[in-house]
């Protein structure tokens, strides 16, 4: 009984539908946000912001995007990085070609362009399902990468398609420092995280899950399969597009199309497998895992073997460990880290009893 819920009565429908129904959960979440927004900017250093926190947040958002498509709507995709690239390059062009457009607005527009492209590449999903979807999503991955590399208009004629971040100005304040970039990323990710959570709890989210679990049955009870699938592709690509803008402009600063290659798509897929398919929290847990594990491994290697391990070999070992972890998770905990957290919460609720 680490926390008790007795005495907390729900007296309105609104309270019953809220995301955090318990006082403890509300308090915990508020504290978490307060720490993230207020405490971390004071105690964090540049390394933490630039190398850990920002990529963690951006990858979480990207994973939310993919999770809506794959985890909730059940449409397998290995082209997520392509939609990130679309978002990043569209945002760059909007900012470049429209005088005085605030960069937050260009991120948003970039997201909409990505959603449109996602819609187009989602069209084959109306006729096919399952593994066959690998085809169109791989088509998106390779085709978009090729377009962005080959047509230099998209990168304002820079060499090899490299784009550079605009100055991150909000209302005259420069947010280009690591702390500023962290705060922008955090704000956007938290806002879109709430949006995603609301979507998956809404009627639309339930339609997604119905289509995932059995599309024929969903059609029988009157859910429009084509509308649902296309919306899943569009929403997913929208979130991925904004994640792409953040990846390019608040995390890396400069990026080329090959920064969004197939490896990145797989990385995002691994995040949702490890974090938990069909969970919003899982994306954050999975992203933290994926960002921290390589750092942890290289630290362990440098402590144990003091630099005698060749970096190439370390990468191989890392690959093997990732592979083992994925299989381990699929066998032991197919719902991922999110499920482990839920089990823990349940245990804490009834502790010290078993049930």
């Amino acid at each position: 009984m680490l926390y008790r819920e007795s005495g907390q009565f729900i007296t309105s429908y609104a309270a019953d539908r809220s995301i955090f129904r318990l006082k403890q959960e509300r308090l915990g979440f508020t504290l978490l946000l307060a720490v993230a927004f207020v405490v971390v900017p004071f105690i964090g250093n540049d390394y933490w912001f630039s190398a850990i926190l920002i990529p963690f947040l951006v990858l979480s958002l990207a994973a939310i995007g993919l999770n809506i498509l794959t985890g909730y709507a059940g449409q397998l995709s290995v082209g997520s990085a392509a939609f990130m690239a679309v978002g990043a390059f569209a945002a760059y062009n909007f900012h470049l070609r429209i005088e005085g457009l605030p960069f937050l607005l260009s991120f948003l527009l970039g997201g909409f362009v990505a959603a449109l492209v996602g819609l187009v590449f989602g069209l084959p999903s109306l006729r096919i399902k399952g593994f066959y979807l690998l085809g169109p999503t791989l088509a998106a991955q390779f085709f978009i990468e090729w377009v962005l590399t080959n047509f230099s208009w998209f990168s304002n004629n820079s060499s090899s398609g490299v784009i550079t971040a605009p100055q991150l100005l909000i209302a005259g304040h420069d947010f280009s420092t690591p702390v500023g970039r962290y705060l922008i990323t955090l704000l956007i990710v938290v806002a879109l995280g709430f949006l995603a959570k609301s979507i998956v709890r809404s009627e639309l989210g339930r339609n997604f899950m119905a289509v995932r679990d059995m599309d024929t049955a969903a059609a029988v009870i009157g859910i429009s399969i084509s509308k649902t699938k296309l919306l899943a592709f569009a929403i997913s690509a929208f979130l991925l597009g904004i994640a792409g803008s953040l990846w390019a402009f608040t995390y890396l600063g400069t990026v080329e199309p090959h920064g969004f290659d197939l490896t990145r798509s797989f990385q995002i897929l691994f995040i949702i497998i490890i974090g938990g398919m069909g969970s919003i929290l899982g994306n954050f847990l999975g992203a933290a895992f994926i960002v921290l594990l390589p750092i942890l491994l290289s630290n362990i290697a440098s402590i144990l073997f003091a630099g005698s391990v060749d970096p190439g070999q370390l990468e191989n070992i890392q690959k093997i460990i990732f592979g083992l972890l994925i299989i381990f998770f699929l066998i032991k905990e197919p719902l991922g880290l999110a499920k482990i957290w839920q089990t823990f919460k349940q245990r804490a609720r009834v502790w010290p009893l078993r049930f």
Partner: protein
Amino acid sequence: MNFFFEVLIGGLLAGLMYSLVAIGFVLIYKASGVFNFAQGSMVLFSALTFVSLLERSVPFWVSFLITLLTMLVLAWGIERFVLRPLVNRPPITLFMATLGLSYIVEGLAQAVWGAQVHGLDLGINDEPFELFGILISQFDLFAAAVAGVLVIVLSLLFSKTRTGIALRAVADDQLAALAIGIKLQKLWFIVWAVAGFVGLVAGLLWGARLGVQFSLSLIVLKALPVLIIGGFTSIGGAVAGGLIIGASEKLAEVFIGPYIGGGIENWFPYVLASLFLLVRPAGIFGERAIERV
């Protein structure tokens, strides 16, 4: 016109090389419904093992046998530690498991044998010869012949032997197959071992063509449109799909490429396959699924 036919034939022969990889997929998909993403890494693993043994001056046939043995051990390990615990899970879970598997096998191959590029010479003369004024690569012809023999042998295996018939029963209905006393685990081991063997053959041919290196594991991606066009469950379809993909991508690169900027080979097969799916969602030879709630 000669040039057109040269490109076409070159493409068709290259397509058969894709088919070699695709056949490995089809075998496993037919028998267990698993979309085996690790096929590409198995190709890399076998080719790397073989070439490294060869470089340590092990005779050709001995290294071939050792590599084959390694692939058998790998197949056994995969059946025992990956497939068996995951039996009865949704196909998407199994696919992701093979994704993890591909990471393990790739990492293992490179950790053991190193990441440098190895040349592989199978002793096949690669001088093109001329036929009716068209230049044809001998190596490609040899690869095509190997692919043809494999297809015939595998088709016979599937239709004539007891194991093959059992495999088809498993593909039709796992539960029913179990009920009449077919040993699922033994069959899975067999089919992964055969896929490993096909992977070894593909690895040798592709390795001789491109050099044995990491990018070998990426040909798995090129096999995908081949499968989509041919259907996931048909060996003949894999060959037909390979021919279509090989020919169309080479023709597109040569005749359309110059107008919109080169390098369209990289994405053309996928776009073609996606368009194809709109017309025939189950591929040319694939089985149309009948659904009920």
